[in-house]
């Protein structure tokens, strides 16, 4: 059987990936440059017996997606900067209540209304720190249409596996670009579903973790009748004033990611084996970086790319390893330096770190990266 080859927009690939992953419910609100994700979901979901709703605002969008997930459905919502800001409270809710949901942020120029139709990477730190309190974060960052498809599936799998909200950090370029994509057969796609309890209802503890620190999650309506709250709660799900319970819960939620880092973290490297200079880039900027590497290698410059695919948790170990043998790391970003703060935190004692920042709404060109590296050399 031949694979399906299509010319597809990034936002459309996101929906295709979501449906391939088993999404049956979408709730959201229109916002440039993510709106196509809502529109295509509205069009495709009823055809497969799924459901779509455009809610009255961004906050309602994520709230409904979380509500839908509690019934056992795989759910998604998509937005951009202003909506991402509005959603933060409920992202934290999904984190503490351990409810799987995929949230897509197709980044645009900020702050505030900013530049609605121009790309940026200004929400990367917000992805980690946007919601108040200490909370677990998984954020993935695709840099092609095909990768958007693949990472959307991965986002759903991680959300289900770790019982939490997972962020897909796209940007306007990735969202709106069109590229060739080969869609895999359904049998080739790995799908992960949340663990559901098998014990009798009166023995079920909805927030008692198993060895992987993830508790099994029952569907509302399946007979388990449990309580879910955003208050600090114990294993039964009921609110608790105990300092011990609070400490245990918050640490477990964060450790859920910590102890499973090896399973979660992925990155891409290109030409790093002999590189003197490492370009640290993600999302659409990584595409420009790859072209810059071609140009520089032809000039004899030993340059390579380190591209985090999970931006959170950050691929610390490999980043440090590369820093130890590099003369410099150059970090082009379409913001005033966000992920580079992680690079600096981890690597400044090993190597020089140079920033290349652009916030005018334009993508960073390969020539700009080349010029920066030549400056550094």
């Amino acid at each position, binding site marked *: 059987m031949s694979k399906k080859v299509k010319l597809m927009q990034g936002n459309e690939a996101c929906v295709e990936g979501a449906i391939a992953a088993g999404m049956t419910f979408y709730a959201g609100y229109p916002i440039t440059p993510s709106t196509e994700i809502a529109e295509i979901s509205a069009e495709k979901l009823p055809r497969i017996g799924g459901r779509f709703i455009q809610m009255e605002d961004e906050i309602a969008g994520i709230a409904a997606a979380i509500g839908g997930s509690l019934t056992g459905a795989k759910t998604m919502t998509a937005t951009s900067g202003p909506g991402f800001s509005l959603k933060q409270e409920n992202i934290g809710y999904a984190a503490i209540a351990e409810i799987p949901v995929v949230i897509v942020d197709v980044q645009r120029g900020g702050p505030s209304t900013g530049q609605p139709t121009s790309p940026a990477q200004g929400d990367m730190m917000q992805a980690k720190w946007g919601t108040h309190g200490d909370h677990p974060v998984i954020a993935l960052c695709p840099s092609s249409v095909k990768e958007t498809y693949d990472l959307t599936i991965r986002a759903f799998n991680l959300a289900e596996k770790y019982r939490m909200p997972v962020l897909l950090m796209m940007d306007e370029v990735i969202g709106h670009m069109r590229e060739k994509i080969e869609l895999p057969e359904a049998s080739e796609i790995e799908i992960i579903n949340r663990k559901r309890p098998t014990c009798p209802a*009166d*023995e079920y*503890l909805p927030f008692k973790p198993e060895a992987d620190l993830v508790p099994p999650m029952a569907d509302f309506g399946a007979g388990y009748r449990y309580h879910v709250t955003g208050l600090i709660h114990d294993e*039964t799900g009921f609110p608790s004033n105990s300092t011990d319970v609070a400490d245990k819960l918050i640490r477990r939620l964060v450790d859920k990611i910590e102890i499973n880092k090896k399973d979660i973290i992925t990155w891409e490297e290109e030409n790093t084996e002999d590189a003197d200079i490492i370009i640290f880039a993600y999302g659409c900027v990584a595409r420009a970086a790859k072209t810059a590497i071609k140009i520089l290698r032809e000039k004899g410059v030993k340059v390579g790319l380190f591209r985090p695919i999970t931006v959170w948790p950050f691929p610390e170990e490999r980043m440090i390893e590369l820093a130890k043998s590099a003369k410099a790391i150059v970090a082009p970003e379409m913001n005033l330096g966000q992920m580079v703060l992680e690079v600096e935190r981890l690597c400044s004692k090993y190597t020089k770190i140079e920033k290349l920042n652009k916030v005018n709404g334009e993508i960073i060109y390969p020539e700009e990266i080349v010029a920066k590296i030549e400056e550094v050399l």
Partner: protein
Amino acid sequence: MEKKSIKGSEVDHGKLIINTEWCKGCGICTAFCPTKAIELKGEKVTVADIEKCTQCGLCELRCPDFAIYVGRKKNEQKG
């Protein structure tokens, strides 16, 4: 998971059952009891005169704490 047992704080007066642990002494049941069969004593509801109780159920209806309710009625079958 073992369910916490309700502590032995229920008093069965036959016509009425009162949970003195749950009662917060708000006085609503006694104020609206049509026959004054119940009264507040030491910030808890208690029976004043059980003979006056007609098991009308108004105390049970308006107790915010589910602390007072009508016991088995005379002509009710058990179970």
